[in-house]
């Protein structure tokens, strides 16, 4: 049995056409209303799309519940900013350094993930990310401590340039995710998620596939991180924070776990967040975090398949089919 049957039922329309369509529409808005605020919000949304795909690959496809995903993102940020600000390397080198660190780290996480599962894996990740966070503060001469490092001003890019880079990166990762999901590798990931014991008996090396999934996912997150460093022109230990990890998860959960569309739809939440913050009086600021949290609770309990599934189930009901249940983790 080819287990991509499992996937086919979820598929809304051919992911490649869908993605290019949506992104082109999105891009088309910018020249019309192209002010800085909007581009800024759009860039943040793109970053979360990339991170969302990255998380989706690891958790949605491979079934390894990544709770501290900001770890990979943060390493990408630090790889870029340290190489550029400290060692005056070109941007491309910063990108590669970030990738390299991430590959090492993700191999470790993947190895742990192939040995541990469930709560144990989650706790190991928390331990690892705490260690990295502490080191990022303590290795002050290298990392700049809590205040971080400034990138030289000549690397400052125009907002619209940044926007286009973000757009291209988002499209590329979306395509990559769609491709991986369809490929034999993706099939393997899903098979491992659905039934690790069965896959083991079929002779596939669970550890190898899990490490592979982690490395690929971390590379995507690293890309987002390196870009974020260029966007922010600095680094900061905050990039490892739980809030970012949580936001990544929320974006995918709200959109729809395991689906190509998930992060794209979910990133609308980032946009919403910015808008809500603009409307709310500042004294009410803590309430917006609370609202965020409540959205997460409601989505996780009521609609774990995500917003996209609500839409899809409407579409499917017309054809008289029922939905496939998707769970967050095994």
């Amino acid at each position, binding site marked *: 049995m080819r287990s991509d049957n499992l996937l086919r039922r979820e598929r809304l329309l051919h992911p490649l056409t869908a993605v290019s369509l949506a992104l082109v529409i999105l891009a088309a808005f910018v020249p019309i209303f192209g002010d800085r605020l909007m581009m800024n919000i759009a860039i943040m949304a793109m970053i979360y799309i990339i991170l969302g795909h990255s998380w989706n690959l690891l958790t949605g496809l491979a079934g390894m519940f990544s709770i501290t995903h900001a770890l990979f993102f943060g390493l990408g940020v630090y790889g870029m900013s340290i190489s550029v600000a400290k060692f005056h390397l070109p941007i491309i080198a910063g990108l590669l350094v970030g990738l390299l660190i991430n590959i090492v780290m993700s191999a470790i996480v993947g190895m742990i993930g192939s040995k*541990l599962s469930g709560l144990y894996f*989650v706790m190991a990740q928390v*331990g690892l990310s705490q260690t990295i966070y502490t*080191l990022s503060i*303590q290795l002050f001469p290298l990392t700049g401590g809590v205040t971080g490092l400034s990138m030289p001003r000549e690397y400052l890019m125009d907002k619209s340039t940044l926007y286009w880079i973000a757009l291209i990166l988002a499209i590329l990762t979306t395509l990559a995710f769609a491709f991986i999901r369809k490929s034999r590798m993706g099939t393997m990931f899903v098979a491992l998620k659905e039934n690790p014991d069965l896959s083991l008996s079929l002779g596939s090396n669970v550890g190898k596939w899990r490490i592979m999934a982690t490395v690929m996912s971390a590379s995507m997150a690293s890309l987002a991180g390196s870009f974020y460093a260029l966007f922010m022109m600095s680094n900061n230990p905050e990039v490892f924070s739980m809030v970012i990890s949580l936001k990544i998860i929320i974006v995918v959960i709200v959109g729809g776990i395991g689906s190509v569309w998930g992060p794209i739809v979910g990133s609308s939440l980032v946009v919403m967040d910015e808008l809500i913050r603009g409307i709310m009086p500042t004294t009410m600021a*803590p309430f917006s975090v*609370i609202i965020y*949290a409540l959205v997460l*609770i409601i989505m*996780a309990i009521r609609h774990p398949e995500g917003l996209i599934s609500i839409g899809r189930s409407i579409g499917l009901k017309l054809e008289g089919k029922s939905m496939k249940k998707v769970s967050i983790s095994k």
Partner: protein
Amino acid sequence: MGIDTFINIILNGILIGGVYGLVASAFTFQAGALQIVNFSYGSSTMLAMYLTFFLIKEWNIPIVFAVVILFALFFTIGWIMRRTILNNTNHGTQILTTMAVELVIINLVIIFFTGFPRDMAIFEKRINITDTISVGLTQLICFFLAAAVLVSFHLFLNKTWAGMSIRAVVQKKEIANIMGINSERIMDLAFSISYLIIAIAGIMLMTMFQVEPHFGNYMMTISFLVCVTAGIGNMGGSFLSGIIIGILSALITTLLGAQFHDPVLFGLFVLILLVRPNGLFNSSKRIARQI
């Protein structure tokens, strides 16, 4: 460094470790026995600390009433959480929803109590064992109180009908049902009781430390550490490994330097997870027996 100093540091580690053990025991009870992963655990402890502070210090409620109010409140919080957001068995969903609850708690605390650090301003008396060796009185009381709470919780689980039915539900829900035990109600009860332990731990921590809205993070990591060393679900072990963590963290600070505290401790934590995922004291997955 003299031997006296060494003994002092170790004693201090043991006493603080006992309280860590108590803090972690409720987490390990929830995760191991009830199969509920509660990431809002740390912030719940923090909330208990803030409430203790405000009930006693700011609103001047007599201590006995304050404790009763706190218990009632936490029992209710536990009950409501279990009935609403933890009414499922998927760990992923539980982690996400409880992390969201953590955000809610932290921000509510900031709104109502401000982010200002609070301290009960209780000055600890030292008891001199010899001229150079001394232990803190508050710490000592807390240590024995923690032990007493754990022992009485153990007795509750083993000697009372409610405790026995909790264990029965945890082990075989369906069979407990056909024996006439309302498993949902019992799970609610068990979870609420674990929140009582959190309340007790909160009171103890408040006498020892100052509290700020992000205090919970620290308690959460400590709980993870303790819980993993003991083996998830092993409550007796959690007290013991709380003490081990207490000693270890004191030793790292003393011998290596404080800057190595976190990396070494967390490195060790990941290592234990990889080498002995069931904890140092658990030979197999015999988890429910030790609760």
